[in-house]
């Protein structure tokens, strides 16, 4: 078992190194940060001096090695754009993304499971069919458009909710939270729906099909034969067994909510790490881009590693064949 875990950890580190190298070599195609950092009246001399100062005159492999060396010590360098340590900026931005991801995740899970169960039980009802058809529209519209539509309806036309930003935030032990103010909570509604809509439909459809599968099983028929109420059959017996694959998918989807918050954050000017990354690309802020990409790959590799190890615990055959 131990050797299996060590092997998997080793593979994960290799994956991280390769992702990092690919990402780092791509930075050369994003453009040159120097022009953004210097004004119109710069000279070639200024350009060369700043390039050398930032280490950009080195081959990218050397730059990558330096980045890794520093990153291992927890130092992600200084943002070209803001002139502040990247780690500090990321920590400042993380609460916004995590809160948004948490709320939209919760929205997706609660509503997704509820609607999934409903549409499975009332398989042929009018409402269930309507929900299923409406969910297709939700899946096929791009996130960007959904966000803009929500803003125009609820901010511009109705004036109920703010059109951008996080509202007022309160600082709790170094964590800036929007949960404690009215404007903070109101600001969460539209972006959470935008970000969670796709996941919600995904969970709903998964729950529905799993539930339909389970409801066909023999033990459900026996339960019915025993005269148990529909309520007990549906929620105690059927739903419990439905949830096993659903939970696995939810776990993996949570990672992608954080990673794909980028579009929602751009539309709503939500001050999280996704927006930070978009700004960094426009400005060719290499230290920020590198740190963000590493963070996201660490997250995904970590989740996958955890899942693999858990499976190995459950199914001993994997330990040998892997």
């Amino acid at each position, binding site marked *: 078992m131990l050797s299996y875990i060590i092997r998997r950890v080793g593979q994960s580190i290799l994956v991280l190194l390769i992702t990092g190298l690919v990402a780092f070599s791509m930075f050369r*195609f*994003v*453009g*040159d*940060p120097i*022009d*953004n*950092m*210097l*004004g*119109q*009246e*710069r*000279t*070639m*001399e*200024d350009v060369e*001096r*700043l390039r050398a*100062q*930032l280490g950009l005159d080195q081959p990218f492999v050397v730059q990558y090695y330096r980045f890794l060396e520093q990153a291992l010590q927890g130092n992600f360098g*200084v943002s070209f*754009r*803001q*002139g*502040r340590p990247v780690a500090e*900026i990321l920590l*400042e931005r993380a609460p916004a993304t995590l809160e948004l991801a948490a709320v939209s995740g919760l929205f997706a899970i609660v509503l997704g499971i509820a609607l999934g169960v409903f549409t499975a039980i009332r398989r042929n009802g009018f409402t269930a069919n309507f929900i299923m058809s409406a969910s297709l529209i939700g899946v096929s519209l791009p996130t960007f458009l959904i966000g*803009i539509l929500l*803003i*125009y309806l609820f*901010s*511009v036309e109705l*004036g109920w909710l*703010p*059109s*951008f*930003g996080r509202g*007022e*935030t*309160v*600082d709790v032990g*170094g964590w*800036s939270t929007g949960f404690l*103010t009215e404007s903070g909570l109101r600001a969460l509604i539209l972006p959470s729906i935008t970000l969670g809509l796709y996941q919600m439909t995904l969970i709903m459809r998964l729950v529905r099909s799993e539930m339909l599968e389970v409801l066909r099983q023999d033990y459900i028929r026996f339960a019915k034969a025993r005269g148990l109420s529909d309520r007990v059959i549906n929620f105690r017996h059927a739903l419990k067994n439905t949830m096993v694959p659903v939970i696995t998918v939810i776990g993996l989807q949570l990672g992608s909510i954080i990673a794909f918050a980028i579009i929602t954050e*751009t*539309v*709503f*000017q939500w*001050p999280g790490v996704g*927006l*930070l990354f*978009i*700004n960094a690309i*426009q*400005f*060719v802020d290499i230290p920020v881009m590198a740190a963000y990409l590493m963070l996201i790959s660490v997250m995904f590799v970590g989740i996958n590693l955890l899942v693999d190890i858990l499976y190995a615990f459950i199914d001993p055959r994997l330990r040998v064949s892997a």
Partner: protein
Amino acid sequence: MLRFSTALALVLALPASAEEFNFAVTTDPQTMDPHAVNSAPVLGFLNNVYEGLVRRGKDMSIEPSLAVSWEPIGDGEGWRFNLREGVTFQDGSAFNADDVIFSYERASSEQADTSSWFAPVSEVIRVDDFTVDIMTTAPNPIFPDSIANWMMMDSGWAEANDAVRPDKDQGNFATLNANGTGPFQIVSRQPDLSTVLEPHAGWWGDVEHNLTRVEMTPIQNPATALAALLSGDVDFINPVPIQDVARLAGNPDVQVIQGIEARVIMLGFDQQEGGPSTNDMFLDPAAREAVARAVNVPAILQTIMRGNAEVASQLVSPAMRGYSDAEAAPYGFDQDAARALVEEAGLAGQTIEFKCPNDRYLNDEAVCQAITGMLAQAGMDVTLDAMPVSNYWPELRADNFDMYLLGWSPGTFDAEHPIRFLASTPNEEKRLGSWNFGAYSNARIDELLPMIQSEIDEEARQAMLDEVAGIMQDEVAYVPLYVQPLVWGAGAGIELTQRPDNFFILRWVTVN
């Protein structure tokens, strides 16, 4: 981290009658250090916080600020500035000649991005507490104009906070904090999120605004910014997307403020023999003229700019000092002439590589597409390559183009500026022609530039500027297309002043 709660406490503590003003910007100023980055977002914003010896008025004319008056010394050996007495910085310390000397040393240092402004300066002398002499190597008639954005810092504050020199690479205290003499002071600054300003109670000037609190929020997405304006979440946005202008005009809750920017959009050409792109077709002036005749600028302005821009004939707009009235006629669209010139220059059968940015100027890519089509109609074969601006400049510097699009806004608001950067033969040592990517070169222009720079007599100077403008028109050095429009959006009750440099000056804002 305290800043969040401080900002919140301030909001809660404000009386209901306070005139709060929220505005959105596309690009957050990357630093609060007035000498670290010489870019419009930084200088435009900091003009509300810091002040220079002189400043620009509503019509862009130079007027007294921290200097009450100035006059040339002798036969143009330099300029004497008489400083304003009783000015205090926002931290309460007094302003005097020592701060000017310190700000000169700081802004002209190697670490500063503003050092080119001081290239003509040989020495700065402190005459007494409120008199400073700035000596120049040659007579320099436009020196006061060229330092309108040179902002004064307090030497004591900079020393106490370890910010004696700007630091672009690592940042320092002045990157996030400010202490100017200007009408507004920064009370909280969270880069890329929000910057809150309040009036500086000890400001020396007459207060024209009625603002008690100002918040600046960056919003990059134009649709979001527009929605924020329409829903009243912000009181001002810049720019308004041109395609939305007509729709906004019918909305009583908002106003659209339109003007002409200082920026001229033009086409440039590869004019060096050999070079990485071996295509030497634009060495022939006839080829460049063919392009000039083939592009229907009024049509572009009508369709893509929706009537919001003016045709340009020179590298500066008519609002700039030194604009040449004698050379005001643009090339003019003439497709038959263009076809004939294509034949004459042998352009037929050659592929013109046209580089264009897609995120730098208003509707830049759409304009380039239109130009590509127009050139094709005149018999030219053009491949358009549009890209983000951070890839664009390296591409131009590597000479990977036959033709390119460029916008130029002269920092000094004088016709000399583009001659120095765009029309001079590139010369790294003399710091000339650093944006002359096509290496246009004319011996007479190179000869005239130093004379223009040191000529004190306005009439003689204008005659030389006219001559340069004439040469550039005759040789089709560049093809000036149009002056880029400024389109701002504001709430209905907001009064403000729009300046062609696209600076948003808060002391001219009133909320009704």
